[in-house]
């Protein structure tokens, strides 16, 4: 799928993946691929800057964790992030219904 189409929805999808529990960057990317059935094979370099920005905006929080002998940055959703996710979902439903009704 064209990465331009994904760009506007990347934040919402990252927040949605982290809704189910904390995860590190690689796991977030894998989960995005898996949950989209491979449709969202997005450039992986777009996810890390987005994770850092979402944290800077207070939507995510992160800590270092030791796993498999390596340091990993694990991200979790904040309360603000949860609110933003709800808003993104509502916005997407409205948008997709409107597009569907035009295209159908």
């Amino acid at each position, binding site marked *: 799928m064209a990465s331009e189409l994904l*760009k506007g929805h*990347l*934040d919402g999808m990252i927040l949605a993946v982290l809704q189910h529990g904390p995860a*590190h*960057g*690689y796991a977030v*990317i894998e989960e995005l691929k898996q949950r989209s059935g491979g449709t969202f094979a997005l*450039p*992986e*370099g*777009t996810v*890390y*800057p*987005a994770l*850092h*920005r979402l944290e*800077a*905006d207070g939507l995510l929080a992160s800590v270092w964790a030791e796993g498999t002998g*390596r*340091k*990993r*940055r694990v991200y979790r959703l904040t309360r603000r992030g949860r609110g933003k996710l709800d808003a993104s979902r509502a916005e997407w439903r409205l948008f997709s219904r409107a597009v569907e009704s035009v295209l159908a």
Partner: protein
Amino acid sequence: MTFLTDLDTELVGLHVPAGRRRRILAELEDHLACDPEAVGRLGEPKLLATRFADELGTACARRAAVALFAALAPFGLLFGVLFALLGAAGFSTSDPNLVGPAVILGTQIAFVGGALALLRAWRLRQETTVSAAQAAVVRRRTALGLVGGALTFAGIVTGASNNPPHVATWFEPLAYATAAVGAVTLTAATVVLVRAYRLRPTSQGPAAGDLESDLGLLVPASLRGNPWRLAFTIAGLVALCIALAGVIQSDPFDGVARALADAAACMAGYAVLGRPLGLRR
């Protein structure tokens, strides 16, 4: 690993702070350890580093504007309380020993800079990345607000150190306490602004925009596309408010004089700083 070394070099070139760089490299090292083939999917180091700078620089610029507001709000509140208490106790608040030019100028500059910075940050709140020009406007407006805050701080300290004999004894400690709050909050906001100046977006994207684009639909149709007319209207409204305040305070001549001075200051500020502050194109 060449990829990580090249990425580090690019991040250094874009002034990404050392702590942030270490974190980015550690995360990507872990990513590549999970999937060594991913190096091709992460993109070119230069592109990836630019993306980090653009996204983090955007967040930093926005945060600087919010930090300025968070600094000025308690400081302004205490300042207001201080002079309201003086007025309520029957002391004159127009004594130049208490309220010198630094306070008069500083409060207005801080208000205008803070409001403009917050307005632009609010307008760009949904953007994942903004252009270098737009981020520069947010930073300059924030810097202006900080200069105003610093002037106000200096004015309050001067007023307290003058310690006029006809003023209540509690004025001096309360004024110093207000200044201390201002010193702490303004220093914190300055640190955030310095970070925003170091880590800047590089994207050449949209131009800086103007006040009309900030205010959007609030600008009447008759004023759209004519920035100078919009500036004159705003200066006129400011002057009207000040003149009315003079009438309410039973000093209409002083009110009119201050209104004219403020309107002239508005227009002079607009002429000199309009472009750097993104008020006109």
